[in-house]
């Protein structure tokens, strides 16, 4: 038996959290030790994800490193984990961002540091769990369990309106995911009707023949849960609150990893499990995504608060990801996965930089800043690179994903691509405008005159971000190579399940009459 590396990705942060419980002493004494332990553990996890990547057979689209154990046999529930190219890179992203998030909050978190470290590690463990689960029950357990540490992260270490934001975040996400639970149970039951045993195994459920009626409702339930998480317009209202109130580490993890769980869920579960329904709803999803791209960009433009601006830019950027997925062709989906990673890096970077500025000035209002370039050339240079990456400048990470997505969308329906492309222009507008107001011009506020430039810790945070950003822009194939076989495999399966591609310009056939009485309880 080989070493259960995937399980260890979940277990290691938990072990670290337990180790942290043993750290005693008052805040002054325990805090540095706790921070260092958490950092070392998260770096170990990152090293493990890199090891995983190096051992991964990138030519294969199959699930690798599979572990399978019976858990609740009476219900066919298994501990079943594995990775393909899509989840592999998301694991690496999680492993990469967690230590940076810890470093980013190194000084700004000054109370209950030990608890903070525990919560971040538990969150990392749950996120890893979400990406490796191939059993729907297991997936749901991690998916929901993740809410608790995130809730505390926002609720305890957040800014002024943190309690409101934390509760809103929790209830919003919960409301979406409980319906998914019903759909999961419905699937297990459908498997029972067809084969005489319950199963939550995704690979088996992929093969399940569902009636159009079952597909429709199950897809809606799954898509709602994921759309809230993404967040897709109009389910995005929790996001600005959660982001603005969250501490830097919370924002980085939230934007960097957790939003991807929504789009990952669409790629892994909602689309391949219910291909016909997905086909039927893909145009609607795409239109919502395009609305989100433009709406998010327009709202971002008028934000006075940098953090809120970045938060709305996430709504816009994640719209691209959903558009790419909805296109359901190789370019679109590969681009979407690439954009997930890329958005994690650049938005993570933006939140880290905004965090550095707000650590210095204790405000995030754009109007409070101006002319930072003179005092902090290094920080502003880093800020510029991350900003350009976020806009999608060729040569940096953001370009590749957006380009592929637009290509995929164009092949599907040029109109969608045309509208979405305006989002690229708008993002340049709001990002550069913000950058200009913060960094250029004369120093209008005296407090900005003598701010310290990057400290060694901050160098350690920002250099990896920039390095990966350039790497992803220059060598996209390094990342696309594991993604593509997995995407191909998914698409082949998908188009087998839904042989008739419904074009956006052809109005889809109304679903079978059985849909109409679907509302009854029996």
């Amino acid at each position, binding site marked *: 038996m080989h070493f259960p590396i995937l399980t260890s990705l979940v277990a290691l942060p938990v072990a670290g959290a337990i180790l942290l419980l043993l750290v005693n002493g008052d805040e002054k004494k325990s805090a540095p030790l706790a921070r260092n332990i958490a950092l070392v553990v998260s770096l170990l996890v990152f090293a493990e994800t890199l090891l995983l990547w190096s051992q991964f057979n990138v030519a294969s689209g199959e699930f690798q490193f599979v572990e399978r154990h019976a858990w609740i*046999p009476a219900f066919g529930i298994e501990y079943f984990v594995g990775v393909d190219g899509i989840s592999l890179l998301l694991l690496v992203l999680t492993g990469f961002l967690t230590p940076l998030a810890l470093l980013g909050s190194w000084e700004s978190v000054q109370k209950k540091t030990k608890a903070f470290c525990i919560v971040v590690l538990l969150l990392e463990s749950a996120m890893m769990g979400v990406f490796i689960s191939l059993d729907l029950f297991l997936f749901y357990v991690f998916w*929901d*369990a993740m809410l608790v540490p995130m809730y505390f992260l926002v609720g*305890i270490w957040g800014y002024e309106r943190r*309690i409101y934001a934390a509760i809103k975040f929790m209830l919003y996400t*919960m409301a979406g995911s409980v319906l998914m639970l019903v759909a999961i*149970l419905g699937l297990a039951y459908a498997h*029972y009707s067809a084969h005489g045993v319950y199963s939550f195994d995704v690979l088996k459920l992929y093969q399940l023949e569902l009636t159009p009626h079952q597909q429709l409702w199950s897809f809606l339930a799954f898509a709602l849960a994921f759309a809230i998480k993404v967040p897709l317009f109009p389910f995005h209202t929790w996001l600005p609150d959660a982001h603005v109130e969250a501490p830097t580490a919370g924002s980085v993890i939230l934007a960097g990893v957790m939003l991807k769980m929504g789009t990952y869920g669409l790629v892994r579960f909602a689309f391949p499990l219910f291909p016909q329904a997905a086909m039927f709803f893909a145009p609607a999803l795409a239109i919502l995504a395009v609305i989100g791209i433009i709406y998010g960009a327009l709202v971002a433009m008028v934000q006075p608060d940098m953090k809120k601006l970045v938060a709305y830019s996430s709504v816009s950027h994640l719209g691209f990801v959903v558009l790419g997925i909805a296109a359901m062709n190789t370019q679109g989906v590969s681009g979407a996965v690439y954009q997930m990673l890329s958005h994690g890096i650049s938005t993570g970077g933006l939140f880290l930089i905004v965090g550095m500025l707000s650590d210095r000035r204790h405000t995030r209002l754009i109007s409070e800043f101006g002319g930072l370039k003179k005092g902090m050339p290094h920080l502003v240079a880093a800020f510029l690179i991350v900003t350009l990456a976020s806009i999608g400048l060729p040569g940096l990470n953001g370009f590749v994903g957006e380009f592929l997505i637009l290509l995929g969308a164009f092949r599907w329906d040029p109109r969608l691509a045309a509208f979405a492309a305006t989002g690229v222009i708008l993002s340049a507008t709001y990002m550069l405008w913000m950058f200009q107001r913060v960094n250029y011009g004369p120093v209008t506020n005296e407090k900005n005159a003598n701010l310290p430039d990057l400290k060694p810790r901050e160098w350690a945070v920002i250099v990896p971000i920039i390095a990966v950003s350039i790497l992803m822009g220059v060598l996209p194939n390094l990342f696309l190579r594991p993604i593509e076989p997995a995407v191909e495999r998914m698409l082949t399966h998908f188009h087998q399940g839904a042989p008739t591609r419904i074009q956006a310009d052809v109005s889809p056939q109304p679903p079978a009459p059985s849909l109409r009485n679907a509302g009854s309880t029996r």
Partner: protein
Amino acid sequence: MPPGVSLSDFYYILPELVLTGGALLVLIADVLLPKERRAALAWVTLLALGATAAALVPFANTHVEVAHGLLAVDRFSLFFKILFLLAAAITVLMSIRYLETEGAASPGEYYFLILCATLGMMIMAGGIDLITIMIGLETMAVSFYILAGYIKPNQRSNEAAVKYFLLGAFSLGILLYGMSLMYGLSGTTNLRVMASAFVGQEKDPRLMLAVILVVAGVGFKIAAVPFHMWAPDVYEGAPTPVTAFLSVGSKAASFAMLIRIFVEGMPSMSADWRLLFYVLSILTMTAGNIAAVTQSNVKRMLAYSSIAHAGYLLMGIVAGTARGITATLIYLMIYSFMQLGAFAVITLLRRKDVVGDELKDFSGLAFRNPFAAFAMLLFMLSLGGIPPTAGFMGKFWLFSAAIDAHYYGLAVIGVLNSAISLYYYVRIVVFMYLKKETSGSDPVITPALALVLGVTVMATLVLGVYPQLLFRVADVSARTLGVAGITAAIR
């Protein structure tokens, strides 16, 4: 010896006899012991409960009817008896310091009544005859009427007792009326004989009236909406350990009675009673959760939460399948642990200078007593159904039972309710972890309370990750009822 009763019948009710003996022993010891040594009575009570549990061992695989069908000794009753004994033991452990703080004069009576209530519950779970069930129900109910008003100088406690007594008596009348119709229409009080007598009479309006009346009577006991009015006041006013025992033991016993009467006694009428419970289930969980959202008193909030939980539990009954009954049993066991645990934390907060049952009393608990706060956090997450806690597993089973029986709408309403409920459970967490500490002495954990919290926390965690054993036990217990037969009828 009366005709038809033999010595072996007494053998089969050995656990009940032991418990009765124990109860009497406590009562006598209360008189004989000098005042300052009466605290030891708690341990005598625990001993009696332990001895009863030991007396259950020989009947682990028994499946007999005692005294010509007055009582059944089977796995189903065994499951509930274990639940009652556990709940009673935890309640006793919780009560020790609480009674001292309240300055209750004679704990002997209190413990005696706890044991009597347990005895009543055990008879209810075993009863397969309307007469036996009624005797068990009354033994339990009368004990609770007194227990609810046990803190005599406290007005709220008195009010609780009077309300509970009046509404209890009223609901009993309705239940008895329904039962008398059942008897009149079948000519027997034995549920299993009755079941066959009712076959073919499904359309008889008198029988339907009986079903409606019994559903209403049982509805009172499990605090289902719209028969729940008594519950919030009684839960709030009664001494906290009594509230805990009432919300767990009495509810579980009433569910046992419900399953016996409807599943064993009226399987042919299942279309009717399942429809009624379907409506009750939706009303109960929705109204319970919505009312709980606005409460500021934690005991009252947990009362509404307990009402809502009756709604979830009814989902298993509505499903009517073996899986449904199993899910109800599983959830009752899990619910007992988390509910008792939550009340144990409230008991912990009761100090000389603090009543400890308001939301604000939980402020900053995480900093004054991290373990108690963590335990409460766990119970709240579990009640709200967040994995990896036992509450999630239990709800998962209930929802799956509903879907298994094609009640998708019910399952959807159930999950939405559990999302709503999260709001008020999390509110306690907000106070414990996110708010500043309040004045008053620090809450101290006594060894007895530590034991209670330890057991309930472990159960909530372990059953959340490894529910397999509980599932198997509950499954076997449910199947002794012969529910499989009904399942076939429904499908």
